[in-house]
């Protein structure tokens, strides 16, 4: 009976505001910016697209086709170091002038070749009405088309996916290190991951009423989702 009550209540609260673990926010869009870069800014969905293949140990090198830039090289180093793969995987930047299929056919075996195009990048700033617009969320949201090929000799694989990746920074008043509440990103292992949360600071803001206290989990389910992005 109690479960049913809870279920009905949850159904009636589907449109509840998003919440972090301690505070409840009512995010309002303040401003946004849309760009169409020709390079990847957030390569999280690329790593996620290959996660399953990498996990089964069949890939040890990933060739990422992109316009060669210093930023791209740095990203590849970061992907190699922090790719989050159990087995070591080397990410190599290849000029986008090359053909994806040609490289896949040439390299074969334990490699994967990946390219991303049709990039769309949105930068949006939201303010929390529950904190009288003193708490803010800055979201960097990227969508792109990803094509990946793994030319395994027996079970070759290819996939085209619509990659979505975002990184969200929540801060109080100013985006300076001591005012940062949390940092989260998607997708990391296909989930939203909290990279950083300043719990003592959040608790003090909740205690002093600067942030609206989130009622118990049974009243307001926690949501790690970002607010809807503007079109």
């Amino acid at each position: 009976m109690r479960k049913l009550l809870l279920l009905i209540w949850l159904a009636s609260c589907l449109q509840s505001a998003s919440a972090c673990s301690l505070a409840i926010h009512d995010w309002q869009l303040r401003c946004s910016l849309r760009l169409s870069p020709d390079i990847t800014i957030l390569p999280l969905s690329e790593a996620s697209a290959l996660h399953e293949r990498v996990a089964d140990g069949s890939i040890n090198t990933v060739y990422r086709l992109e316009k060669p830039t210093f930023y791209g090289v740095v990203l590849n180093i970061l992907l190699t170091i922090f790719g989050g793969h159990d087995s070591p995987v080397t990410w190599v930047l290849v000029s986008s002038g090359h053909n994806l299929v040609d490289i896949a056919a040439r390299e074969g075996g334990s490699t994967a070749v990946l390219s991303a195009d049709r990039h769309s990048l949105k930068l949006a700033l939201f303010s929390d009405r529950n904190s009288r617009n003193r708490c803010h969320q800055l979201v960097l949201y990227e969508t792109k088309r990803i094509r990946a090929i793994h030319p395994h000799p027996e079970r070759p694989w290819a996939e085209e996916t619509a990659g979505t990746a975002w990184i969200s920074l929540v801060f109080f008043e100013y985006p300076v290190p001591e005012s940062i509440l949390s940092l989260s990103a998607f997708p990391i292992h296909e989930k939203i991951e909290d990279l950083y949360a300043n719990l003592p600071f959040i608790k003090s803001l909740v205690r002093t009423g600067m942030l609206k206290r989130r009622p118990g989990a049974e009243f307001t389910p926690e949501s790690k989702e970002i607010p809807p992005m503007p079109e």
Partner: protein
Amino acid sequence: MRTVSFFLHASLIFYILCAGTVAAQEYRRIDIERLLREHPLMKKFDPEVARFIKTPDERKDVSLIRTERTEIEKRLAQAEAAKSAIVKSNLLSRPGSKELEEAWSRIRKMDSEIAGLKSTLERLSKFLEAGGIPTLKVLMDDVRWMLSDILSRQPHGETTILLNVFPRFSAPCPAFPESGLSDFLHSKDVGMLRTYASYSCYTGILFPSCSEPILFRKGENER
């Protein structure tokens, strides 16, 4: 007991569906229990298992689910092999740009099919783990549809509030965490009342549009 529970659930959903119209001009009294009993879908209700037979809500034989799962696994393996063949013959053979786009289009279609099969496989695996009993959501969907159907047949204006006659069986008080309504009613303890009041949001779910106390005739609800 299962029947009692079912009708109580159905009554609760009725309150959700008929959540109040403040500016109502007219009140109309209906007996949701009687209307439910007369509904054609109720002929399929099996009180033993509290599920509707010959609907998606019906309890399934575990061996049938296993057979279906094996079949899906086989189809999934075939689809993945077919996709590998497309990659090998149409993509890695370095085709021209037109053929290349066609190959990607075929891969997208195969991925869509594979995703559908994986989703079915996951559903069947969960179904199997639950011993062939569909989730409560499936039951709720059936009940919700039945109640919507019943209510749509009731002649009433847009501002009419439909008042349901409470089910005519003794339903247990909702159990609340830590301390509940039944505890309070039996002990008449002030501290208990405070705790109960702190859970008023739960009772609000039961009566979302009710601002008046509910009065019962003496003896009517005594147990």
